[in-house]
């Protein structure tokens, strides 16, 4: 695909690896905040190919993984109601709540549907006026404009049988929480390029200044990730802490202003629970008062559902790079990719799930064919 293939070129990757090697003299811990970047790292084996001085810490940037247990249990409760069509992005459907997941609700008679876009859910509401259509509005800043548009369109078109269960999270407060943590080991951050395509880069300047930590806005293809790492390392080696944009083909300083405008109209900032981390102040969005009528939590009265997170899960510490996954007592025992206890085991790119996979290769010489 144009503008994807070019940024997957193995020959250019070699140049970037070599340059990272050249500029690195000390040990550095770099966090890629975003799950999409983690995906590129794991899928291409970038972490194996970097020199040992660079440790990549997989951050909390997967909205699916960090959606709190209580949020999922609310979704499950609504999805199980008669006359409800519950719509979700595909990757949310298998995420377990306290006792089951959305697929199990479906097997018990719930009408759960996977949609590609929130607008598909609005369309379903129009087509099924005798049903309540509920959309599970999760995501970071990147997804918020889409979810805001769905609510806005429903209001504009007078669609009253549509509502959203909102579990939106914001990146800058999470980064702040991680650098603020007492034993934080993170020396520099790759910020999430697609979040910044919406919000711009201006939010990160104050973070850089306050905490003296390099932040490089980074894209999602392997070469983008390598360039982000390279720029963070160069800053660290030179003793600088600056905000850089390594994804200028997509990200501008001001971001997408029309999107920010509608998001600001539909949502308001609130405190939010993060699975594995706990509550982070001012780290989420909920519907603004003018749109409260579309709040599924109120409409179906599930606001009181509050599910305790696993007591043994240490995914918060893993997310912050304080421990390795296998240092958690539950790792590989009561917590596996099939029965995840916490955020980092939920998605296949989560630090624990990825570690679980690769651990199986530890100490094994891998012989790969030259093909024939």
């Amino acid at each position, binding site marked *: 695909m*144009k503008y994807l293939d070019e940024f997957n070129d193995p020959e250019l990757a070699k140049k970037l690896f070599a340059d990272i090697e050249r500029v690195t003299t000390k040990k550095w811990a770099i966090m890629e905040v975003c799950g999409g970047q983690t995906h590129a790292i794991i899928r291409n084996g970038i972490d*194996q190919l970097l020199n040992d001085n660079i440790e990549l810490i997989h951050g909390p940037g997967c909205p699916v993984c960090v959606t709190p247990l209580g949020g999922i249990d609310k979704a499950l409760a609504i999805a199980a109601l008669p006359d409800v069509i519950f719509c979700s992005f595909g990757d949310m459907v298998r995420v377990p709540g306290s006792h089951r997941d959305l697929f199990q609700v479906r097997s018990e008679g719930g009408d759960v549907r996977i949609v590609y876009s929130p607008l598909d859910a609005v369309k379903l509401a129009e087509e099924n006026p005798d049903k309540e259509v509920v959309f599970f509005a999760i995501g970071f800043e990147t997804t918020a*404009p*889409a979810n805001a*548009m769905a609510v806005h369109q429903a209001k504009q078109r007078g669609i009253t049988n549509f509502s959203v269960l909102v579990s939106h999270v914001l990146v800058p407060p999470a980064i702040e929480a991680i650098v603020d943590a007492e034993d934080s080991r993170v020396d520099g951050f790759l910020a999430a390029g697609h979040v910044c395509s919406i919000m711009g880069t201006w939010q990160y300047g104050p973070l850089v200044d306050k905490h003296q930590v390099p932040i490089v806005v980074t894209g*999602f293809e392997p070469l983008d990730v390598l360039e982000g790492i390279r720029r963070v390392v160069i800053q660290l080696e030179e003793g600088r802490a600056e905000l850089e944009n390594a994804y200028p083909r997509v990200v501008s300083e001001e971001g*997408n202003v029309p999107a920010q405008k509608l998001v600001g109209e539909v949502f308001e900032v609130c405190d939010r629970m993060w699975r594995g981390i706990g509550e982070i102040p001012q780290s989420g969005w909920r519907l603004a008062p003018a749109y409260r009528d579309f709040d599924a939590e109120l409409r179906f009265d599930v606001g009181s559902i509050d599910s305790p997170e696993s007591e043994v899960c240490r995914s918060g510490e893993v997310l912050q790079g304080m421990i390795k996954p296998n240092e958690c007592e539950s790792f590989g025992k009561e917590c596996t990719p099939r029965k995840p206890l916490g955020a980092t085991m939920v998605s296949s790119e989560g630090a624990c799930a990825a570690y679980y996979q690769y651990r199986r290769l*530890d100490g094994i010489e891998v012989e790969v064919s030259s093909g024939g």
Partner: protein
Amino acid sequence: MCLAVPGKVIEVRDDRGTRMATVNFDGILKEICLAYLPDIGVGEYVIVHVGFAISRLDEESAMETLAMFRELGILEEELGVESDPGADSGSATETVSATGANS
């Protein structure tokens, strides 16, 4: 988070007041909401996430970034510093892959 991919706008139209587009992703055609990019026209590349164009893709900037990657290391080679002791640089790739995934 936020799987978003580049595609080319091939048609723009209005759907009950919302700006919509057909976007071509290398042969896959998808209806995409263009409400957040009011100035984008046919032929331009956009980044698409969950059915929404969230950003214009600046082709010139993409080319500049790739050109910069291609330049990497060339200066060092010209100056003859490639045998810098810090590393048998460039061979890191092969060395690590041969021993597998003990990262």
